[in-house]
């Protein structure tokens, strides 16, 4: 309560007001993330409240083609990421996809993406489900980001194999999570909300050694 009263920037627009009353799954780790990040080595932060939409549509069907027209394409196979602009579509399964879009795309903030996807599916068999609250997003950046992830992920993360612009559904720190390589040294990790604090602390633990001088 005291924190709310002391908030330096009072909510103004409806969007800000809406976000101000929401608590992201890894909110409790915000200070720990700031303290554990090492500029130029490995940094972690939460990107809360991204818009995520679960899509189920058989590949090649009319509904899939209409949905692809909204999102800017659907990924073809494991690891692929499609999309256009700031809307991305991650491959989860042969007929299952996850749309990731900025916070403002959510319909509670006036965005039209989810309704457009629902309209694209129409009455055909398939699913368009708002999964924005299902997962949260961690962004792990820096030259050591790969080393941190390799402590808990069995995928081959070497840049020779794992290219920017690919995403896999896998296990990180023994929990299921999505791993999306967005740049040469930047990764997005999508744990389910209930696992967010666990995985956040796991990653922070993996980052700790880089805060100390290297032992020769």
């Amino acid at each position: 309560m005291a924190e709310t009263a002391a908030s330096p920037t009072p909510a103004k627009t409806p969007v800000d007001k809406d976000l101000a009353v929401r608590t992201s799954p890894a909110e409790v780790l915000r200070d720990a993330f700031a303290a554990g990040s090492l500029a130029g080595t490995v940094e972690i932060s939460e990107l809360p409240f991204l818009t995520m939409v679960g899509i189920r549509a058989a590949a090649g069907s009319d509904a899939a083609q209409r949905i692809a027209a909204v999102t800017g394409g659907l990924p073809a196979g494991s690891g692929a990421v499609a999309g256009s602009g700031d809307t991305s579509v991650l491959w989860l399964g042969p007929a299952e996809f996850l749309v990731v879009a900025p916070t403002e795309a959510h319909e509670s903030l006036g965005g039209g993406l989810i309704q457009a996807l629902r309209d694209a599916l129409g009455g055909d068999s398939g699913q368009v489900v708002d999964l924005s609250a299902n997962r949260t997003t961690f962004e792990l950046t820096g030259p050591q980001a790969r080393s941190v992830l390799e402590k808990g992920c069995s995928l081959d993360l070497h840049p020779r194999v794992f290219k920017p612009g690919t995403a896999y559904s896998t296990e990180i720190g023994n929990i299921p999570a999505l791993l999306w390589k967005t740049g040469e040294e930047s990764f997005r990790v999508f744990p389910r909300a209930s696992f967010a604090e666990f995985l956040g602390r796991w990653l922070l633990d993996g980052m700790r050694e880089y805060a100390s001088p290297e032992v020769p």
Partner: protein
Amino acid sequence: MLLIPCPNCGPRDETEFHYGGQAHVPYPENPNELSDTEWSRYLFYRSNTKGTFAERWVHSTGCRQWFNMLRDTVSYDIQAIYPMGAPRPDRAGTTGAESGTASLAADSTTTGTAAPDISGTSISSATTAAPEGATK
């Protein structure tokens, strides 16, 4: 740790998968006509094969799809991966240890044509093909 080649995602750690038991156990066409014994045989009795075994797996933290696998229960050698509904691949040169109910039934997910083949689960049928070291 097994490295299981998922047909959709490629090789992944065994911990990403869940085991679905013996493959090719057809659902009885008329379950109501089965005796309690036959029904329990369908529900609970599975072969305990020493050697090549057909089994179901699901890539639960990946693509969440089911598939069938031929695996050697002794050496853990994965011999074949094939889709649900496909018949068991014919493996030439496999040992005679497989005498279970892993039949050539076309599909483990659809209705079988008769009551389940329970012969492999009875003790008597294992006389000729009992693997070395099997309990008499």
